[in-house]
């Protein structure tokens, strides 16, 4: 058996927790040309829709460049023949019905559908779907208007037009607008799978009815309606599948953070395949784990075994995707604008860099003797898009909130900070959810924000947050007294002077608020007095960022308002 190289034991004390059953004997290099575990393709129906769209583009080119040529004339004559046949079927009663159904294409109905969808997406905080839908509204309106002007087709001739119309005939703008509005609602609000498949029929019905009504009233040609329907329905299908793939951005109404990825279906299979091929682990089961405690990744509990029938072991996985990378960027941008460049707030350039960094920190901290989980490395799910970091699962450990905290636990927690200081490291996210206790010893998890060679200020903040976290389950006096065994009074005073609400992780801040005791204030009373350390750091970059963001928001809103006005949304 070949065991994991480099880490023969874990600083957490569980030297063989996973290694005894973890081997890499089944690893397999993915040959060139073979797809990754979770490819990012357009499926068959997507390619069909794209092909239809390309065919329409070709037809437009012919119509624009070849008006009067035989093929175009044949299409026009066929259109007219169909409309003349329909005209012969008209009756007064049917005409009255069709005039009523024609209202399905009204601007007001389309506006109501679109605004309803956009507002729902805002409320649901489904911003990517919102942006794609908004972009589609603008793009389809632009393509419809442009092609209409370019082709410049007459309304039907040779038949009596009974309904109202606006502009050139080709393509049918009302059919495209209604189709897009309904498809937008379908792909952004209805969960994929059975529900969406059923709802597709509901969406198709009004578009079909409107199309029939417009043909009956001889407002459009059949080919106008056909192209309008493709623009309004096929194009959104392709766009949503490419830009908001269901595997990565599922539409879901289950409780939980939206940053978490669905691990069922093809992604679940891909995780299994990646673990097997890249780490030689056979996945028995995978379940989400403590989703409520993590917003920056999707935490997973993995049950694996060696080969096909070896002993089972539990591992911990953190699934990272583009959404997490973007969250990290926005978070850091917001902090940079609000407080200046606190420290190392640089963003990661890719998901790969993000997961590489955490893997590296796990190994560095492990090498420094800190009680962190053992890293087994990470596996590639989709190149540059999704990676799974695999670490030891700290079986038997409980969050500090649920642990009995005595002097031994306090000493262990403070010793962790002391060791980080000595090793030139900082965790930067010390809070109850990231401090576990097992056998009276503190373990640190979630090193995504950790850093090597931090500033003295950042190291001081780590101490304050650890003291506050420990004081939540004990008392400030007890924590301060134990801290004096490892830190000088000046060190503690500096740490407390460096703390502000922004330097305290939000979970810890909320716990402090709900605790009722003024823990920070009491610690400050116990420690030597020291003036607060300013955390507001002004720089050209911060000012530029703030102005840039304000300008970009104003420009975006202005552009959006103009676009919405142009497309009839306002």
């Amino acid at each position, binding site marked *: 058996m070949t065991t994991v190289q480099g880490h023969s034991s874990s600083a957490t004390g569980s030297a063989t927790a996973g290694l005894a059953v973890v081997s890499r004997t089944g690893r397999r290099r993915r040959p060139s040309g073979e797809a990754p575990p979770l490819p990012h393709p357009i499926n068959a129906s997507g390619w069909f829709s794209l092909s239809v769209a390309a065919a329409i583009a070709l037809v437009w080119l012919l119509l624009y460049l070849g008006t009067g040529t035989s093929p175009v004339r044949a299409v026009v004559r066929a259109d007219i023949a169909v409309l003349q046949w329909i005209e012969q079927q008209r009756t007064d009663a049917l005409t009255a019905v069709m005039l009523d159904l024609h209202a399905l294409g009204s601007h007001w109905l389309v506006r109501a559908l679109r605004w309803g969808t956009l507002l729902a997406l805002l409320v649901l905080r489904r911003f990517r779907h919102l942006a794609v839908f908004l972009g589609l509204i603008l793009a389809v309106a632009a393509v419809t208007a442009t092609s209409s002007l370019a082709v410049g087709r007459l309304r039907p001739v040779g038949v009596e037009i009974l309904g109202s119309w606006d*502009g050139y005939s080709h393509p049918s703008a009302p059919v495209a607008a209604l189709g897009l509005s309904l498809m937008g609602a379908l792909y952004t609000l209805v969960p994929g799978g059975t529900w969406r498949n059923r709802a597709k029929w509901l969406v198709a019905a009004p578009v079909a009815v409107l199309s029939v009504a417009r043909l009956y009233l001889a407002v459009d040609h059949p080919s106008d309606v056909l192209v309008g329907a493709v623009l309004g329905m096929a194009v959104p299908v392709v766009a949503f599948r490419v830009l908001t793939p269901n595997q990565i951005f599922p539409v879901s109404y289950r409780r939980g953070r939206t940053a978490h990825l669905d691990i069922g279906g093809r992604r679940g299979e891909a995780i*299994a*395949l990646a673990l097997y091929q890249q780490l030689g682990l056979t996945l028995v089961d995978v379940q989400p784990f403590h989703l409520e405690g993590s917003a920056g990744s999707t935490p997973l509990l993995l049950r694996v075994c060696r080969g096909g029938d070896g002993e089972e072991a539990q591992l911990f996985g953190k699934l990272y995707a583009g959404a997490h990378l973007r969250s990290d960027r926005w978070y850091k941008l917001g902090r940079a604008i609000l407080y200046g460049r606190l420290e190392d707030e640089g963003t990661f350039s890719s998901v790969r860099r993000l997961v590489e960094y955490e893997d590296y920190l796990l190994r560095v901290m492990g090498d420094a003797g800190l009680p962190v989980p053992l890293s087994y490395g990470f596996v590639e799910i989709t190149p540059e898009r999704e990676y799974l970091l695999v670490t030891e699962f700290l079986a038997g450990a409980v969050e500090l909130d649920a642990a009995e905290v005595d002097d031994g636990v306090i000493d262990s927690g403070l010793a962790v900070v002391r060791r980080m200081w000595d090793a030139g490291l900082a965790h930067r996210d010390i809070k109850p959810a990231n401090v576990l206790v097992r056998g009276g010893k503190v373990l640190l998890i979630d090193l995504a924000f950790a850093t090597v060679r931090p500033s003295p200020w950042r190291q001081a903040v780590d101490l304050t947050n650890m003291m506050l976290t420990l004081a939540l389950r004990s008392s400030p006096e007890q924590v301060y007294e134990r801290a004096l065994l490892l830190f000088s009074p000046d060190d503690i005073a500096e740490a407390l002077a460096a703390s502000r609400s922004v330097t305290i992780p939000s979970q810890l801040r909320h716990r402090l608020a709900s605790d009722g005791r003024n823990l920070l204030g009491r610690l400050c009373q116990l420690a030597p007095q020291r003036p607060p350390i300013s955390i507001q750091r002004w720089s050209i970059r911060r000012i530029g960022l703030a102005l840039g963001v304000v300008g970009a928001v104003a420009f975006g809103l202005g552009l959006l308002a103009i676009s919405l006005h142009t497309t009839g949304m306002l």
Partner: protein
Amino acid sequence: MTPAASPVRGGTELAERGRPVHVFDPRLLAGLTLLAAALAGGCARPATTMPGCEPGGRLGILAQAVPTASRVPCLKEMPVGWNFDALDVDSERARFWLDSDRAGVRAAEVELSSTCDVGGATPVAVEEEATRRYQRLTSLSPRFVGTTYDVFDGGCVTYRYDLVNGPHIVLYQELHEAVSLFSRHGLAEDVRADLGVDLDPKGRRR
């Protein structure tokens, strides 16, 4: 079942799939499509949508907007300094606007409708046959603002102008020289020759 073929206990043989890899990002294709659409948009400049004085869809749609009109307004060669701006046509009326480098953006609006109110307007001479022209001026200086009506069988063309600058009389003459009236009969003949059907619907044919 070999371990190599079964990363998930009891699952499908995923390792044997060997699916082909896509060598391009689908988003690239979507982006290229949008770019192509944007470039195609460049082909549809306002100038290409101008209702020129020749039979075809650009002029025929105006005739369809007002089925009773025996004539439709069209643009002959544009005088220097004038540009076609935009066309707005629906089942009630048709309008287009002209820009002038001297008189301003949308200095003139030309509207085709079935009727128009010429009350208070003064008859003036016109070269177009079977057409009566009326004019109502509301301001001569500093802006030259007024309305001209060309009334003919079944319809009316209204010219609204607001000439901010420039030699007003010259601009006024250029405007009326640019816009002409095209016979509906000529348009119907073209459609009949091209498609073998009538431009106007049965029962409402002129």
